[in-house]
């Protein structure tokens, strides 16, 4: 069953441009992609919680490529499919005025195929190939409108992304040179037997830089605001909601936790990179006027929380505190799921705002709740969730991270997390004041454009934002999040699953 996750989007991705060569059928493309993502969502829900491996071509693991489904990858699959489904639903109405939609949906499907591949594969080089499939499609999608700004953003993203990929490839080359294997589970067995650890440390550094460029950690972030604000809205939601997580944080933590068994100092580096991204991203977001750019900087900041949670988990694992480590990892994974939900909600919402007012400049617009109550309400839920107001999901994941930091004795980290939460609240209060409340400002270009096709996806995501808070309950957390955290924590379980030792 596992190869279907890659094969279905790959097939759709090649089929749609082929059909477009003969006939332009916008609605047909949109419905096909919607069905495809729906099917994948159903598949990933069916497969959820299962543990299995799949041998590609029938070769056994250390020799051939294998797909692994464990707690973490099944959770990631559900996140990808869920966001992709909602985005496809949104794009059906939103993108209908654009041209070349066959190519748009084709690239969208190829990007999905790449992300599913990254989530499933158990082979480092295969991961690189899938990563490039997803990344190249996203470069093209960012510049899809072909205006000067879009092309510039796309070029910037392309250069940074290409440099990141080259760093990753060099890291893989070095790893293969010193360990002699490309299978993640096999690497974890062999890596401790290598006498000269310097090459492994060097390749770890290269991985952190390379995946850091993909995930937009703070020294490497400059492409992200441009790319996210220039892309078509559904693509912004996909990029921010899943792409930077799957290509950046997930791939990095898979290699570092399961493959290299966390070399010295890496958890500390991850933690401080996370703390830095969180803080600086939040500070820059405070000064933004453009709604999408604000959301993009806030993405950098929120990615910091995820990285911080995972890094703290690593620190506690090396200190021999497994219970705290599990909690910190759960915090990171929980925040990943939450951020996927509310950030794609907010990006889709910003697309709706742009439809209503014709601009995204916060100082020129206002009073959206009066113009369109439904999208105003969903946007409010999104901002409340991301700034960590209690009943919504963002609060619970931040709470888990703070509890883990305090329980483990990392008080400065807990302080930074709390302070950044305050900053987040501050800039979303600014959005609240300027966009939602107050008198209607700005020209309302076309009120009738806010059709059900725009706000139904927003409603779905808003319900998710409220519902995902339930994951905090220990019973549900034990079923959904704990296996994901344990998949990172218990490297030996992963090895056992893949190699059958």
């Amino acid at each position, binding site marked *: 069953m596992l190869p279907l996750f890659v094969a279905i989007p790959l097939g759709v991705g090649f089929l749609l441009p082929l059909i477009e060569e003969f006939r332009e059928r916008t609605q047909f493309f949109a419905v096909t992609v919607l069905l495809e993502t729906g099917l994948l969502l159903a598949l990933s829900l069916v497969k959820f919680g299962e543990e299995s491996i799949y041998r590609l071509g029938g070769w056994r693991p250390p020799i051939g490529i294998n797909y692994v489904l464990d707690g973490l990858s099944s959770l990631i699959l559900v996140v990808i499919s869920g966001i992709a489904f909602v985005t496809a639903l949104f794009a059906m109405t939103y993108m209908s005025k654009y041209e070349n939609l066959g190519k748009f949906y084709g690239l969208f499907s190829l990007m999905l195929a790449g992300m599913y591949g990254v989530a499933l594969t158990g082979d480092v*080089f295969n991961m*690189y*190939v899938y990563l*490039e499939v997803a990344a*190249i499609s996203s*470069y*093209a999608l960012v*510049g899809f409108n*072909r205006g*000067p*700004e879009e*092309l*510039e*953003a*796309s*070029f*910037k993203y*392309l*250069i940074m992304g*290409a*440099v990141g*990929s*080259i760093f990753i*490839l*060099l890291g*893989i*080359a070095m790893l*293969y*040179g010193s360990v002699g294997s*490309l299978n993640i589970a096999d690497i974890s067995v062999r890596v401790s037997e290598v006498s000269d650890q310097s090459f492994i440390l060097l390749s770890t550094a290269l991985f952190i830089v390379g995946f850091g460029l993909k995930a937009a950690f703070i020294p490497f972030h400059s492409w992200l*605001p*441009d790319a996210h*604000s*220039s892309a078509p809205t559904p693509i912004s939601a996909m990029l921010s909601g899943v792409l930077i997580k799957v290509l950046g944080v997930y791939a990095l933590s898979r290699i570092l936790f399961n493959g290299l068994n966390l070399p010295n100092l890496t958890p500390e580096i991850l933690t401080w990179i996370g703390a830095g991204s969180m803080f600086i991203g939040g500070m*820059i977001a405070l000064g*933004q006027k453009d709604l999408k*750019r604000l959301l993009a900087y806030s993405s950098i900041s929120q990615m910091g929380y995820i990285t911080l949670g995972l890094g703290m988990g690593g620190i506690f694992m090396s200190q021999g505190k497994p219970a705290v480590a599990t909690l910190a990892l759960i915090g990171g994974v929980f925040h990943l799921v939450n951020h996927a939900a509310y950030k794609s909600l907010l990006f889709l919402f910003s697309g709706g705002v742009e439809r209503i007012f014709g601009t995204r400049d916060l100082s020129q617009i206002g009073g959206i709740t009066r113009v369109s109550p439904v999208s105003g309400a969903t946007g409010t839920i999104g901002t409340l969730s991301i700034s960590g107001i209690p009943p919504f999901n963002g609060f619970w994941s931040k709470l888990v991270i703070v509890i883990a930091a305090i329980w483990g004795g990392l008080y400065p980290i807990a302080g930074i997390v709390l302070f950044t939460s305050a900053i987040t609240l501050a800039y979303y209060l600014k959005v609240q004041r300027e966009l939602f409340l107050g008198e209607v400002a700005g020209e309302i270009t076309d009120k009738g454009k806010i059709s059900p096709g725009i706000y139904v996806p927003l409603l779905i995501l808003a319900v998710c934002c409220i519902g995902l808070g339930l994951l905090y309950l220990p019973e549900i957390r034990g079923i959904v999040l704990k296996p994901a955290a344990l998949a990172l924590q218990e490297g030996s379980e992963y090895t056992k699953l893949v190699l059958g030792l």
Partner: protein
Amino acid sequence: MLTYLLAFILFAVGLYSVINKRNLIKIIMGIIIMEHAVNAFLILIGYRLSGEAPILEEGMAISEFVNTAMDPLPQALVITSIVISLGVVALMVAIAVRLYQHYGTFDITEIRKLRG
């Protein structure tokens, strides 16, 4: 070891070009140089002095094969990475040409509408 060093110098040349040059085409060339440096490094990992093609012929002992054959895996990886870099470079060149049509220049400091 010297050969590894040469690959790294090539890599550094490419990185310098990407970071320091202002012309879009020179940046693209920097990316290409970096990619080729990594490819050369991958090939050098699998290289063995006076090694043979890794084909197991009839009547050949496994131990002899292991002692003489080169490692074929890096070569397979290199052709994959060449294909990927082909795609990336094609996209980069296409976008650079488009940018040239809009702005009439390849200078990156003049192509600056986005800020922040």
